[in-house]
């Protein structure tokens, strides 16, 4: 398991450091980010929109197995929210969070890890998990780190479709 942050400052520093290492360009596409994450983690990454409201508070999860990470997002969500769930799961991967095969939030989605697989899920049972963090709770810290990094990614990636043209002519 990777070292986890022990304070809010460390969490901010750590996520900023990891974000910097990705070298993501402003306005980068999700496909570009996926390529970067695949390179950084050395895993094949696949994203699939599956499931629906039966997932309850789980908006996305990542199933880790040897050489592969499968990101599953809730199909019934609007595109921007699916996008955010994907960023959150990719953030877990680059932060080298290791999942747990019996994650309660995974069970809520009706997805169970098979032998050799681990799972991380973005559950919204609490909406303040980005800032109110119990640093003694490893799962809470992982979620807060992933959420913080996903916001940094979103900040860089969000924008109009033709960002370069707008930067010049806008």
């Amino acid at each position: 398991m990777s070292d986890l942050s022990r304070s809010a400052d460390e969490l901010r520093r750590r996520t900023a450091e990891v974000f910097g290492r990705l070298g993501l360009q402003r306005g980068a596409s999700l496909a570009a980010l996926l390529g970067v994450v695949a390179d950084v983690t050395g895993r094949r990454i696949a994203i699939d929109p599956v499931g629906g409201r039966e997932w309850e508070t789980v908006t996305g999860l990542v199933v880790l197995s040897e050489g592969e990470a499968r990101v599953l997002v809730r199909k019934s969500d609007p595109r921007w929210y699916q996008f955010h769930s994907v960023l959150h799961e990719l953030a877990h991967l680059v932060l080298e969070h290791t999942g747990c095969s019996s994650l309660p939030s995974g069970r809520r989605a009706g997805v169970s890890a098979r032998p050799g697989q681990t799972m991380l899920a973005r559950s919204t049972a609490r909406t303040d998990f980005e800032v109110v963090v119990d640093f003694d709770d490893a799962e809470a810290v992982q979620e807060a780190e992933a959420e913080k990094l996903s916001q940094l990614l979103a900040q860089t990636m969000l924008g109009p479709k033709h960002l370069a043209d707008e930067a010049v002519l806008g």
Partner: protein
Amino acid sequence: MELAAFLALAVLAVLRLPALSRGGAGTLSELALLTGAGALFMVGTVVPLPILDGWFGGTNVVNLMQNVLATLAIWFMTMTAKLMATGGLPARRELLELVGVIVSFSIPFFLMDRGDTHQQFIWAYADDGWLWLYASIYMGYVAYLMVRMLVALRHREARPYMAVRLGAIFMGTASVFEIIYLTARVFGYAPEWLGDSFIPLFYGGILLFAAGLGWFPLARKARDLALTIAGSLLRRASSGHQVILDDEDHSTDSVAHRTYRLAVQLADFGNTAELTPSEQRSLRFATRLLNLQVPAPQIIRMSAEPKVLA
């Protein structure tokens, strides 16, 4: 039509004035708008031509100034397109070419007998060989720059470039028609339909240019306004919850990201509890805007392999 073209370029130039200090293509495109508006001012759109030309001696010198400014405007625009396509700033050769062309068409202008201010200077003196040379060099260079611009813009995908491309075709065609018309006049023919097509084609082209280029700043302002409204609605709707938007880490966020953060929090909340009708409405409004801001395909299904290092 000239007045409409002048107003379009002038408004756009004022709107985009901060782009002047951006450097690179931002500066070049703003210089194109400023010189373009200057060229159209010299047509007599604001100050009547006799008064304007009178300031410079009343011998049609404003016609040369108009064409020099128009050449500069089109050159700046072509260099903008080239910079966006290749990342290259104007080369020394291109700068020399520009100066060479301006000098080349200025010489016959000063050699000819220009007479007093004339509203239709070029057409009035069309059978003069020096005027033919002056106007043909200018028009020929405009047509050449239009072709270069179309080549440089060929990979740009944004829809407003359709208007810019059409504008370039119109202006290029107008220039070629004008050369043919002036040549015919030198040989004693007067195909007026050809001469009459110049103004709608050339100034129509400028209007299309302005519409295409104006789309970008207007779209940005409209989008920022809509996102700001969506953000306010979300903030108001979320006031009953613990909203954590304005902490020190997010002071530099774009308006899109500020709205996105609020929407994520409210949508997250909506997973655990029923949202009020006002919350649902504000989230639906934000969803329409945010779906256009995420750089992802309509259906997010994709995969990526890690690069295998040799």
